[in-house]
């Protein structure tokens, strides 16, 4: 077991070495991506700011609090994009017939997928961290030991939720050739519906975002806890916000189980 972990650790280190070297090779691309990501998130935040100039209260949330909500999502999402982005390439590998190579290598299939080298720039992560620091100061969140202990766990949990949902969609490609549309809808739901406190939505949407596609655990529930807000979407205890790491793990386990079913099915029909 220890030997096995050592091999994984070694592979993972090599993988990051290649990534960093690639990123250093394409420094100009990095700058372009940085500008690109910056403008994307800036337009989203400016839109929120303008709305809150005209309508000062979004169900009791003001702009700094909304910025904190946004930055929590962005942080989790950018960690997912940094660590697990390549899972989104699975449908393409399957379609192109390149997926079979993971079966002939002596390593876990999913581990092989997430260690496929590619161009990863930390642009979104850097922006997310900066925004998070700013929004934390600005919204007056108290930085106590709850914050220091739980924020990293919550962000990792949120990244796992994101990853799990992407993994489920990628797994669907073992049955359906084209899952781009599905991926796109899930992405859009995530981007647009995490922007506002879920308490403004209708009951059905709140339930979907809590239990079916639990994006609300990426930012809404933790934000209500740290901003000392009453949780008025489902009238749960604000402490639910601390459950994100657990929810993330459960999501990941379920998604992984589905992935294994998909892998067996894929091998079963003799591709």
């Amino acid at each position, binding site marked *: 077991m220890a030997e096995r972990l050592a091999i994984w650790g070694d592979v993972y280190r090599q993988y990051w070495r290649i990534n960093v070297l690639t990123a250093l090779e394409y420094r100009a691309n990095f700058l*372009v991506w940085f500008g*690109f990501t910056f*403008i*994307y998130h800036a*337009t989203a935040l*400016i*839109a929120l700011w*303008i*709305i809150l*100039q*005209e*309508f*000062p*209260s*979004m*169900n*009791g949330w003001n702009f700094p609090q909304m910025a904190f909500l946004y930055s929590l999502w962005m942080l989790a999402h950018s960690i997912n994009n940094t660590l697990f982005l390549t899972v989104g390439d699975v449908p393409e590998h399957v379609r192109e017939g390149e997926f079979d190579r993971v079966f002939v290598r002596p390593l876990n299939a999913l581990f092989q997928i997430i260690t496929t080298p590619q161009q990863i720039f930390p642009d979104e992560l850097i922006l997310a961290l900066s925004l998070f620091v700013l929004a934390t100061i600005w919204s007056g969140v108290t930085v106590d030991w709850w914050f220091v202990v739980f924020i990293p766990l919550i962000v990792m949990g949120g990244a796992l939720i994101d990853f799990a949902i992407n993994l489920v969609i990628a797994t669907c490609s073992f049955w359906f050739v*084209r899952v781009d*549309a599905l991926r*796109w*809808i899930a992405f*859009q*739901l995530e981007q*647009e*519906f995490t922007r*506002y406190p879920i308490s*403004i*939505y*209708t009951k059905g*949407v709140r339930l979907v975002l809590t239990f079916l596609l639990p994006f609300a655990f990426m930012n809404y529930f933790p934000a209500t806890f740290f901003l000392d807000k009453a949780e008025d979407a489902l009238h749960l205890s604000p402490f639910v916000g601390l459950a994100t790491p657990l929810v993330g793990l459960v999501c990941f386990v379920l998604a992984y189980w589905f992935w294994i079913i998909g892998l067996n099915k894929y091998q079963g029909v003799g591709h």
Partner: protein
Amino acid sequence: MTSISAPPQRFSLKPYLEFARVAFEREATYRFEVFTSIGSLLVRVYLFRMVWTALYAQNVAPKDLSLQDAITYSTVALLMSLVLDIDQTRLIHDKLHDGSIATDFMKPINVPLYFFSDGTGEVLFHSVLILPSLALAALIVHIDIPPPDVLGAFFLSFLFGYLVGLLMNFILNCIAFWTLEIHAVQLIVTWITDLLGGQIIPLIFFPLAFQGFIFALPFAAIYSTPLLIYVGSVTPERYPEVLGLQVMWIAIFAVISVFIWRAGARRVVVQGG
């Protein structure tokens, strides 16, 4: 003209109608994408309904736009985006990438007109989608229908807005004559257009200090002008002014388009394709 130009021929519209028809049918084959775009449109209509409802319920309503107006505005904006989000002249960029634009120049056709007919076919297909989308959206939200004269002005302004967007995209695609890669720039322009064009938030909600500036930008001519006519925020006595501004942008971009196309085309011919 250069030596590769085709022998003079009487101009006929027929091949261009055919290009448009082929593009229309090509778009119609992506059935799954059609369902997705309508589905995601409906999700957003519902999202905007919830957001505006919550905002109007808890704040002093702005005097110039009621809740019903805001919901109508967002829904019509989303329906318009089915057509306006199309990059009609993407073919220029694609053909510059794979080099096939060189052979297009040898064909006895007017090349820009060929690109425009292809884009028109694509856009016509997507404008057909507006009808089912509208029918389904009407199940989610109540959409106000303005009186016929306002509706007429809206459609005219929508057409002008479409032309502004078309020419802006044409210019961007022509930049590929020099840089080949323009995808990132195009996405950025799209995001900025959505925000400063008033697709997401009506421009009358922007802080007063910026409004004069933002209304003077060409982005406002794409979405905001037709939409504000639709919800009655721009009254009939202001039609000449706002429509005139749209026409001005069309004229400016048309002139730039002609110059950039000539310069770009010369580049292809000089380099030998």
